[in-house]
């Protein structure tokens, strides 16, 4: 049954945490008022998403493994976004494998869109349109389609998004949905096949594997602060390698990334802790912050409130982080 929904977010945590189909870890990289809008459009076989974000952020996305996804930027003049450390221009389309995690990094406000099909559907429709089946790549792949083909896809996608916002009931009609889907799928397949395939250099593959190991280490110790010497030893990569990888994928040094991670760990604990039973000092020192004045200042400039305010605030109801509030990228 075709359906669509539009949502607006002001809390990045809900925005990142609520994404159902994929496991997303996200960090906002600039201070400011967060605002994001997501539009979900499920047609019959084709599922789509459009996103609009106000602040730069880094997301690490672990796909569900069931759908093959393509991604492209929607605003013509926004700064390039980085997909797994590779600069992705406006006229490039990234296609992802089924289960490899990837990173999306933006340096300013940005809009982006996704389309996905199951691998079987992808095979069938591409066989029908171009006479040979397409398969999802194991490593992300970048294509640069000819301008008319690309702009057709963008226009169709935008029109569908517009329809979902203004007239979702029309989009919900099976025939309308089928017609839109057919046009979109055709444009998508043409974009993927008629374009110039950009090579992925070996260094990118190498860095991708380093990043994977890095994330494995980080996820295996979700609650503990980590520091550089230990991280290098467990990941098995030198500081220079990690620095290059993190600069490319995350746009910051690994030290800063670890520091941000610690800050977010503290924030998480502060928000769920009981102000009567614990203090900011206790929680901060648990995560290795010992210069408490500096910590408070950094916390304030990062999250826009002093740590004590986060602790004193009444505990948020679990329903606030409920998955119903979230969006789904598929």
């Amino acid at each position, binding site marked *: 049954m075709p359906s669509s929904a539009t949502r607006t977010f002001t809390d990045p945590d809900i925005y990142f945490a609520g994404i159902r189909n994929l496991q997303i870890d996200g960090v906002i990289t600039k201070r400011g008022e967060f605002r994001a809008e997501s539009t979900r459009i499920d047609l019959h076989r084709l599922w789509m998403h459009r996103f609009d974000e106000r602040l730069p952020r880094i997301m690490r996305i672990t796909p569900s493994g069931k759908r093959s996804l393509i991604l492209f930027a929607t605003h013509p003049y926004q700064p390039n976004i980085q997909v797994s450390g590779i600069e992705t221009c406006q006229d490039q389309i990234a296609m992802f494998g089924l289960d490899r995690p990837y990173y999306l990094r933006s340096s300013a406000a940005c809009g982006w869109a996704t389309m996905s099909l199951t691998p079987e559907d992808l095979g069938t429709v591409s066989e029908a349109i171009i006479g040979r089946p397409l398969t999802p790549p194991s490593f992300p792949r970048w294509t640069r389609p000819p301008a008319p083909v690309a702009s057709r896809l963008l226009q169709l996608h935008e029109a569908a998004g517009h329809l979902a916002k203004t007239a979702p009931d029309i989009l919900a009609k099976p025939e309308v949905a089928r017609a839109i889907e057919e046009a979109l799928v055709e444009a998508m397949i043409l974009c993927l096949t008629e374009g110039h395939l950009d090579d992925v250099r070996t260094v990118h593959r190498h860095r991708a594997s380093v990043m994977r190991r890095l994330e494995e280490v980080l996820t295996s110790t979700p609650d503990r*602060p980590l*520091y*550089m*010497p230990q991280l*290098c*030893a467990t990941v098995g990569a*030198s*500081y220079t390698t990690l620095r290059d990888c993190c600069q490319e994928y995350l746009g910051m040094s690994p030290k800063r990334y670890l520091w941000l991670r610690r800050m977010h760990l503290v924030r998480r604990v502060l928000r769920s802790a009981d102000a009567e039973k614990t203090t900011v000092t206790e929680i901060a*020192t648990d995560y*290795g912050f010992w210069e408490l004045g500096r910590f408070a200042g950094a916390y304030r400039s990062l999250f826009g409130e002093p740590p004590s305010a986060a602790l004193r605030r009444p505990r948020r109801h679990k329903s606030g982080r409920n998955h119903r509030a979230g969006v789904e990228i598929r």
Partner: protein
Amino acid sequence: MPGSGTRTFLEADHYEASLRQAQIEILIALSPKFKARLTWAELHDLQVLRCEEDFPRVAYVCLAPQLSFVTFPARSGLLQVWGGTELRPGEIVFHGRGERWHQSTPGSSVWNVIALDPVQFEQYGRALSGKPFSLPSERKILRPSPRDVARLRRLHAQVCRLAETKPKLLAHTEVARAIEQGLIETLVACLTGASMRADGATKRRHARIMIRFEEVLAEHLSEPLHTTELWELIGATQRTLRSCCAEFLGMSPIRYVLLRRLGRARVELRDADPDGANLLKLVRSFGFAELGRFEAAYRAAFGETSLTTF
């Protein structure tokens, strides 16, 4: 379990005993008056020390072979004589395992020490640099980039300040770990990105003679020793020994022997039982033949008569 503290010492031997706990043997030979303050912090696998001494002194230092030591003067710009080598501003010393050396300081001084487990440090060094990494086997004087040195100094100073003002915070496992990892990272950076200078052959030969000198003294300090015997035991000519002592201690060998004896005498006199012991006998056992000479030297060195101490 991480722990820390700070203490002021007015007696050299108490100070020596405290440093011995930190695996540093130090024998202070020249110190008419003495005042020192020791600040220490024991992290998980790493020890941080700050030794503030108010008076000039000449000392013989032995490091425990199972640990690696890094030392550097606390104030940049202060020149200090480190085993006969003047330390330039911005330099740090990576000591060899179990190193022994003479250290003389011209005035009040503050020296910082970091003691670490060499095996673990080498592992971290390899991981961080991604290259073969091993600690220098002999003493190396490093001149790391000013940024790394500044970072090392800052971290060290922060640890010492915490030890003085907030030992509880420093005892927190995670805080200790955060600081320790920061120190390890900085030390690896200091070691990999530094220009090194090692001592020349002559200096090393002289240092060996001085160690031999100290070994001879350890055996023969309590017996009256003639200077010719001394050279023979050390295996160096009078001239060589004299120039070595001038270089490392800033005094003649005879004077150094005298000071060492006096220092030992003071400790033993203080600890002796005034009722049961015989002063004359004690003085003989320190290697002094004549009580009068001893008395004069003692008064000159410590400003009180041996009887008062006794």
